[in-house]
Each structure stands twice: as structure tokens, then as C-alpha cells.
């Protein structure tokens, strides 16, 4: 049986670019949230976001033409993929490019490119798009699969390439697709993860009108507070995370450093509501149980759960309920933290950011805290690792993702050389 491991990590996150800055900030509980200044939010009920700051495309080999053409989410994806390839110490000249694939998850393609251009050429809708002076090659700036294709072009990967759009489960579901092609012998390795850059007027406002985002505008870094009683919605984030997934023997043969082995995954749907969640959490619990079964681990073997944890009451209670169904008596013993407390909800990238967290947790044997946890919600009564990082022995860890449309995913990873 082929085994699939993670050998490289790349991160563009609101609290740090690069795996070390991101992880250091996350363990210390440094939030990337701030007041939005790049567009007028005065009429919106949420005016904060976790934006990526100081992103320099040229640092990742993106030339001026591409920086002009490609949407921000594509540039983030290229940046995190570039880091992941370097982190994996992958010599792309030496690998078989026909056996290398790219799988990227994203929620909405190119909203910024479209929206900013539309605003400019129509003067915010005063004029028609017809006859407008659009940029040359604008179509390619809007191309929904530009992220995976651009990564494949950069590295000469000629295997499968696709964009997975499973709402907020997109990143981990892209990793799942990549894992299958490696498992089935089609590929030796793949770059996989997620990317999103939807901090735009529409990208934010479509959640404002749903009442889903936090209105704690006067205190941005305290706004994302998963599992805390005083939470009032998620904080919109942006960014990207990519991993190099590789077949174990292929990784060993080239002497790669192995972060983790992907042990088991499961994705399903709630069939309940586009945004609301069933309070019992049965489908998510089924995803968690099946992921454990496929990973051949028992609940007690899972040493850490990285939660979807959006900081909305409906999600946090749903996920707590599902964890109890899946883990039974062990649910209250497993440490649970949510990375969204420091990076907000990075949507299509969120579950890919979680994968980076799982790998760094296994490497450093430290669990990052859930910050802003001050007032426990009686309906959320698990160990959320409040406010302070914690050292622990961690061999196996799980991450959950739940997306609009009711898509659930659970993934179990572990140290590849564990007993």
C-alpha cells in the first residue's frame, strides 16, 4: 500500500508570511485582524478583516506582468507553492514532471480582479461595461483555474491539475484529491492546498447581509473568539497555504524531511441548509469517525483536534456536538483549538492553513492556543486550549472543515514513523 506524506509547507497568512513567522505568531496568539482601510466600510456592519500585509509578489518570482494580470488569490497560491517547493528541497529538474500534480482549493475565483475593474471602468455602475476599456488579457485574470495552472506552469508539473471549490472545505478537499492520485499510483507527488483573497466590498458585504461576520469593529484582534460566549460572528480573512504531498518511498529516496503522514480522510454533506447547521452534528461526526476508521486510529489515539471553529455560535455548538458524537467519553479530554482566532476565516485557504498547523504541531509538539477565550459558552464545554500554548506529546492529530452548502471534511495526520 502506498503511503502519502507531507514534505513541504508554504504559508501566506494574515499574521505571517512563511511557515515560521505564521507558526510563531499563531503559538504566541498574535492576531492578524485590523480595521479595513483599502475600501470604504463605513456603511457595512462589519468593518474589520484579517488581511495579508506586506505581500511582495516579486519575492516569489512573480514578475510585474503577472502581478498586474493575476488575481491576488493566484499570487498568494504561487507564493505559498513556491515556499512549499523550497521547504521540501524539491529539485524540480530531477523529478518526473509527468508524475507531479497540482490541486488548489478556492471558494470564489478572482473577485478582486473583477470587482476592482468593474468599479473602475463603470465608475461604480454609472456606465455600462459594454464599450469599457478593459485590460488586455482580462479573461486570463478571471480564469477560475488560473491558480493550479500557474503553479503547474512554473514548475513544469504535467500531471493532473484542478481547482476544487468546496466552499470553506476547499483546501483540505484539494489535498484529498491529491492524495488519491498519489495513492492510486498516478503521481509521485503533488502541490496541494488552498487560496482565497476575497476581502473586497462584495466579498465582505455578502457576509454582512447574512449577519455572519463580527461587528466588534472597535476591537479587531478580539473579534474572532471561537467557543467564547461573547462571540458575534467570524472575521473575514485571506491568504493561502500549500503543502508538498509525496509518496513515502519517493520522499525517503531523496532524503526529504517528513512532517506528517496523511492517515485518513472523509468528506460528506449535511443536506440540511446552505448556511445553517444541524445542531446534532451527525454528518460531521460521521466524517470524523470515518476519517479515524480509515486512519486506523481510535478516538484515544488522536492527541489534538484543530477545529473549524469559526467564532459563530451556530458553528461552534455544531462542532462541539459533533466532536462529542465522534469521540464519546474522550471528547472532553482531547485538546481542541481553532486557528481562526488569529487569522480569521480564510475561506478556501482555511483548511489548508489548518494542515500547516497540524504539521507544525507534530514537529514542535506544541498546541497553539485559542485566544480571546474569556467567557465559556455552556454549550461548548470541551478543552479549547484557552489563551496559552501548551506542550504535549502529539503523534496523531485531526482537523475539521465545514463549508457553506453543508460540506464537511475531516482529516487525520500522524507522525509517519510512530509506533
Amino acid at each position, binding site marked *: *500500500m502506498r503511503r502519502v506524506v507531507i514534505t513541504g509547507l508554504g504559508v501566506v497568512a494574515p499574521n505571517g508570511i512563511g511557515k515560521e513567522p505564521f507558526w510563531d505568531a499563531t503559538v504566541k496568539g498574535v492576531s492578524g485582524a485590523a480595521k479595513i482601510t483599502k475600501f470604504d466600510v463605513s*456603511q457595512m456592519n462589519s468593518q474589520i478583516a484579517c488581511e495579508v500585509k506586506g505581500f511582495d509578489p516579486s519575492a516569489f518570482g512573480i514578475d510585474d506582468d503577472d502581478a498586474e494580470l493575476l488575481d491576488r488569490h493566484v499570487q498568494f497560491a504561487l507564493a505559498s507553492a513556491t515556499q512549499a517547493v523550497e521547504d521540501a528541497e524539491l529539485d524540480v529538474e530531477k523529478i518526473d514532471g*509527468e508524475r507531479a*500534480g497540482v490541486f488548489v482549493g478556492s*471558494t*470564489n*475565483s478572482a473577485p478582486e480582479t473583477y470587482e476592482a475593474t*468593474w468599479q473602475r471602468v463603470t465608475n*461604480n*455602475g454609472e456606465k455600462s461595461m*459594454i464599450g469599457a476599456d*478593459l*485590460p488586455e*488579457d*482580462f*479573461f*486570463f485574470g*478571471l*480564469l*477560475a*483555474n*488560473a491558480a*493550479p*495552472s*500557474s503553479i*503547474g*506552469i512554473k514548475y513544469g508539473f*504535467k*500531471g*493532473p*491539475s*484542478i481547482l*476544487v*471549490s*468546496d*466552499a470553506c472545505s476547499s483546501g483540505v478537499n484539494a489535498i484529498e484529491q491529491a*492524495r*488519491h492520485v498519489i*495513492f492510486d499510483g*498516478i503521481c509521485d507527488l503533488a502541490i496541494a492546498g488552498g487560496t482565497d483573497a476575497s476581502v473586497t466590498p*462584495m466579498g465582505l*458585504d*455578502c*457576509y*454582512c*447581509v*447574512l449577519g455572519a461576520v463580527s461587528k466588534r469593529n472597535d476591537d479587531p484582534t478580539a473579534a474572532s473568539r471561537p467557543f467564547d460566549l461573547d462571540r458575534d460572528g467570524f472575521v473575514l480573512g485571506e491568504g493561502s497555504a500549500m503543502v508538498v504531498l509525496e509518496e513515502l518511498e519517493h520522499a525517503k529516496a531523496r532524503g526529504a524531511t517528513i512532517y506528517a503522514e496523511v492517515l485518513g480522510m472523509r*468528506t*460528506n*454533506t*449535511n*443536506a*440540511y*441548509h446552505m*448556511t445553517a447547521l444541524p445542531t446534532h452534528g451527525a454528518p460531521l461526526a*460521521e466524517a470524523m469517525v470515518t476519517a479515524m476508521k*480509515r486512519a486506523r486510529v481510535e478516538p484515544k489515539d488522536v492527541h489534538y483536534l484543530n477545529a473549524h471553529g469559526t467564532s459563530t455560535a451556530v458553528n461552534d455548538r455544531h462542532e462541539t456536538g459533533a466532536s462529542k458524537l465522534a469521540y464519546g467519553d474522550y471528547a472532553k479530554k482531547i485538546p481542541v483549538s481553532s486557528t481562526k482566532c488569529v487569522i480569521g476565516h480564510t475561506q478556501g485557504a482555511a483548511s489548508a492553513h489548518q494542515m500547516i498547523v497540524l504539521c507544525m504541531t507534530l514537529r514542535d509538539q506544541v498546541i497553539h492556543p485559542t485566544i480571546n477565550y474569556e467567557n465559556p459558552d455552556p454549550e461548548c464545554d470541551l478543552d479549547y486550549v484557552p489563551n496559552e500554548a501548551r506542550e504535549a506529546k502529539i503523534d496523531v492529530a485531526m482537523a475539521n472543515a465545514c463549508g*457553506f*452548502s*453543508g460540506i464537511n471534511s475531516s482529516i487525520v495526520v500522524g507522525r509517519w514513523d510512530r509506533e
Partner: protein
Amino acid sequence: MSSSENGAERRVAITGIGLVTPLGVGQEDNWSKVLAGESGLGRPSEAHDPNLPIQVVGEVTDFEPLDYITKRLIVRSDRNTHFAFAACQQALADAGIDPEQVDKTQVGLIFASNYGGLSTFLENMERLHQKGPSFVSAYMATSWIPCAPIGQLSILYGFTGYSKTLINDSAGGVDAIGAAYSAVRRGDSDVIISGGFEAALADAAIVCLATFADICREAPEPASAFRPFDSERYGVVIAEGGAIVMLEDLERARARGATIYGEIAGFAQTSDAVDLRRFEEDGVQYGRAMRLALDQAGVDPAEVGYVSADGRATAAGDQAEARAIHHAFGDRGASVPVTAPKSMFGNTLAGAGAIDTALAALAMRHGKIPPTINVEQQDPEVNLRIVANEPEDAELNSVLVLARGTGGVNSALVLKRVDGDG
């Protein structure tokens, strides 16, 4: 998970089809028009601004969403989701699957979509930037996301199985069916409703599509504007619509006495990795996708009944496709029947590969190869045996369905007759 985690690999039958295309709604309407070589293309309808930069499109007309879904749901979802509802109803009925009688945990949905609920997005852009943030619809987010169709259909029917939304330009439809095939094969769900849909013909979207040189903007006669492999061609005619192909564990399908169109027996995908703007000129990676899919299916190129081609209707696109087919078919490159039924529908982007797969299933059942219309003077650089203008009778044991997407993605799917069925 993968096959070896769940036990033996299963075979995957096609048991139902649903079609919403510029030619019509439903299998009978589409198939009879395909055999007659009719065109679904024309001038943009009166609802559009007369000054659009693209003057030839394939629109789905005579489509009434109320025939398929409630008014309440219509306003909460976009046109691409409406197409999916209509096609799904057809496919379930065609497959003889009663959604109330089936094990809902074992039914999943995998669709392709590039632009999601684009009309909803554009409409709300006007509201946001003209009127203000509070005027944006509360259903904007859930209509816009590309996975809205699978979300809405899973809710309507209660299906909780393995579900996914894939994006790969006009290869996405084949990729979605390929992913569904792989998932049923390894046992992630017993039944997966798969396909692709696109509804990207809003005026503001057409303006953006017109910035891509491969796309046809104008032609002397709209009905014959899409001319793959012909010397006088005008590029890709953009269209809307899509299709569903119901995939099912073959043993399960047999056990319930389902009528089986055939099976999906192979799927492969490769990338050119050359340039975002153009395909690999010599078609090596495209040809490799064909060989990989045929190898997985255990089908020799000599046995392939016909090749359903991507058919760009650009000189570079058609010629690269011809070279790729020659790479894969060797000596048979110039004699295997090749057709591009898209010449009748236009390129429905995420819907394209799904429509072609549905037609391939119908072709196997009826023993007829759909024609490529508008072939008057075949491009001499395209050394292929095109099924030109008229359908051909043929005993079809296998069909190779191809798709390419901008960005340089190549996909290939193999359909095979199942002995004793269909």
C-alpha cells in the same frame, strides 16, 4: 479513500442522463436534434444589450425554472443551479431512482462550474455600488459560490454522500465525471450524480469573455458560426447549459435491474504546463491523457468507436488536437472517427464535457455517432476522419471523450459497453 483501503475496485455504470442545452431540455429533444445536425446557436436574445462585443452565442431558450423548482428557491439561487435542478430531475427519472427510496447516505454529487452564480454576483454588484451595502441580497453568498448546485440539490433530496465541485475551464465537466467515477470505483459512495453547468452569458460577463482572442465574436451566419476542423472558422462560440450523468456501482445497478448505458472504464488528466494563454503546440500531453485513460480502461486504440473531440475551432487548437490524437492512436490516427458535437451546442465551459459524455452514452445505446456540423472544407492540417455533417451508424463498444481547458489542462474519459446490457 482509495480502492485498496476499501477493498476491491468496483465497476461504474452510467444509469441516467439529464440535459439542458441550447438545443433543448431533455434527452429526446437533444438527441433527435443532434441526429438532425441542428444548431442551437444564434444572435444574443432580446434581453441582451444590442451592442455586445460578442454577437454569436448558444443560449438555453424555452427553459422555465418553475417547471422544476419552487419560486422560493428560484429567487434564492442562480440560473446555473436552475439548470442543475432540471437535469438532475431528468437523470433520476431516467435512472429509475426514487430519491425517497434510495439510501441517501450513499448518494453524492460532483459538478463542475467555472463562474458559479455569475448573474447573481453581477446584479448584486450594481446594488452594492449603486445603492449601498444593505441592498445586497441575503442569498448573494449562497447563490454565487460554485458549489451552490450541489448544496441545493443535496438539501432538496437529502443526499449526504461524497460531494465535490471542480473547476477546470471547459475540461471541468469531464473532470467531475472522472472524479465521480474514481469515487464510486473506490467505494466513497454507491451513486454519484455528476456533470457540469455554466450560465455565464450575462452582458457584463460576455464583455469579459470577449477579451479572449480564441472566442468567436462575430460570424456571417450565427447558426453555422462554430466550425471545428473547418478551414474557415471563427473560434469558440460561448454557450450556456450542461448535463448530468448518473454514475452507479455496476453491481448495485444490475441488482436493481437498472437500464445501463455503459460503464466509465478509464479517466486521466494531464497538464501542458506551457503557458496560461495557449495549448502545447504538439499535443504531447493531451495525447498522453488519451493513452492513460485508454490504458486504465483496458481499451486498445484500435477498438475505440469514436473520439469526442474538444473542437476549439481555432487553427492552433484544432491542429494541436489533431496531433494529439495521432500521438495516442498511432497508425489509426487518421482513420478513427472523430467528432465535435459542440459545433451544435457551442462551448458551455463547465457543461461541455458533461454534455459530450451524455451524448457518448446515447451514441452507444443508439449505435450512432453524433456529427460535427459546418464542415465544408476540412482544414488540410487536420488529418483526422471527421464525422462531418451527418451522423454515422456504428456498433460502438467504446468511446473516448476528450476535453481541454484554458490554462493547459487535458482530460480524457473512456466509456465502454457493458456486456449483456444497454
